[in-house]
């Protein structure tokens, strides 16, 4: 049974599902800049806008995996540049510990990533997403952290 249902049907190629949480002020704007600069990255990446990376609850990350995401990436302002001053510092600790825990539980650590992308770094956004999508594509489907009922 093909696990990933989001892949286009016409190609047999495995297309991962990647959820990217982007903070409104830097990374989402960075993604906009990537867009207006026509810097491509795979359509596998779907962006969810959050006010700040610190809005991202570990539950959202796990929820994405539950639902069949193959990779989750968080993007925020560079440390020190948070629109809300300190938000991304908390994000950094939270995600460090959470991802370390997922690693400890045997989940492939490449499936999770945190990147700091400023509003001016459209190129970095695109490069990051390209790299992440490549990594996830190489890893294959997330089988360890998904609810098997989903997609049915």
């Amino acid at each position: 049974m093909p696990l990933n249902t989001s892949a286009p049907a016409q190609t047999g190629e495995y297309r991962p599902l990647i959820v990217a949480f982007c903070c409104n002020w830097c990374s989402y704007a960075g993604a906009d800049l990537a867009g207006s600069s026509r810097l491509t990255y795979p359509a596998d990446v779907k962006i969810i806008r959050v006010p700040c990376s610190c809005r991202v609850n570990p539950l959202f990350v796990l929820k994405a995996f539950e639902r069949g995401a193959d990779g989750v990436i968080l993007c925020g302002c560079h440390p020190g540049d948070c629109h809300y001053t300190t938000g991304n510092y908390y994000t950094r600790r939270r995600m460090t510990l959470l991802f370390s825990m997922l690693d400890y539980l045997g989940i492939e650590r490449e499936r999770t990533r945190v990147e700091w992308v400023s509003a001016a770094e459209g190129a970095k956004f695109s490069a990051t997403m390209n790299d992440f999508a490549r990594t996830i594509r190489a890893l294959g489907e997330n089988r360890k952290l998904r609810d098997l009922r989903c997609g049915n």
Partner: protein
Amino acid sequence: MSLYAMDRARLGELYEALGALGRVYLPTRKNGASAFLPYGEEGSEADLSLLLCDKSPKDLFFPQSEELVKFRLTGAEIALQEAARQKEPFVLFGVKACDLQAIEVLDRVFLAEPVDSFYQSRREHATVVALACARPAESCFCTAFGIDPTSPQGPCDAVAWLTESALYLRPCTEKGETIVSCFAGFAPADEKEVAAQQAAARAVLGRLPYGQLDLSRFGEASDELALFDHPAWEELSAHCLGCGSCTFSCPTCQCYDIRDYDTGKGVLRFRCWDSCMYKDFTMMAHGTPRKTQKERFRQRFLHKLVYYPKNNGGLFSCVGCGRCVKKCPANLHMIRVAKALGGEPRAQ
């Protein structure tokens, strides 16, 4: 019916042979805990000498979570697809007398009208082999409920005894006979060794600290209102953590919840274990009739000792397996409650 015996050393062969009757579930140690698990799973060790598994066999008939129906929603339309019932036969081997009685307790709930077809299909496809106890533990008090663990009785197809050297088997249904016929290692045997084991075990049973737990105040004829208003509940329940370790370890607890899970493609309606000890168990939009842990605690114990017996001809829905004795984080178990309520109220 007649008694058969086989060489204990050939149990492995028996399990393999039973495979012909369906998947074989045995008392099994795995990852530091025990449960009735399919024979032959990697990292598991089937062991008939386990007195009681951590998990009772109830989840083979009433699983912790099971799908009932699947809905597909398109526009305003709902399409409905019933979940499959059990279709494959299976063998449940090594059920102790208390757990066997527990199946009887569950049967009276799920097989009562209107019949629960999910439970029923599992019961119908099961071949149940009971196993007598040779070395009861101090926490056992099945005898207080009139259960003889050396000679299990109840909804089973065969009864077995495990001795130092042999496994004895007495089929009690046609299905039970098929167990004998599917394995060549069985030979007719006499009662001598079984009787000896029973005698030895009964001697131990006589020394169980709570083997004769006084249950005279409970049961079908008990004074429901007096027990309900008993002053001991306050203190008994004061340190109950409201977890479900008793409920979920209990072989007879069968409260359930029905929930929906949105899979993104449709909605699965499933039934799962629930516990009357949980504070949201009876929660409604505007509140709950069981406001504190006292009410919830009382509900669980009175259900086992009073409410169930009143609805089921005096049959208690506690079988004295002692799992709650071993599992309760605060040690607030059936023996403690029965003693506190059965005797004089404890002086304050």
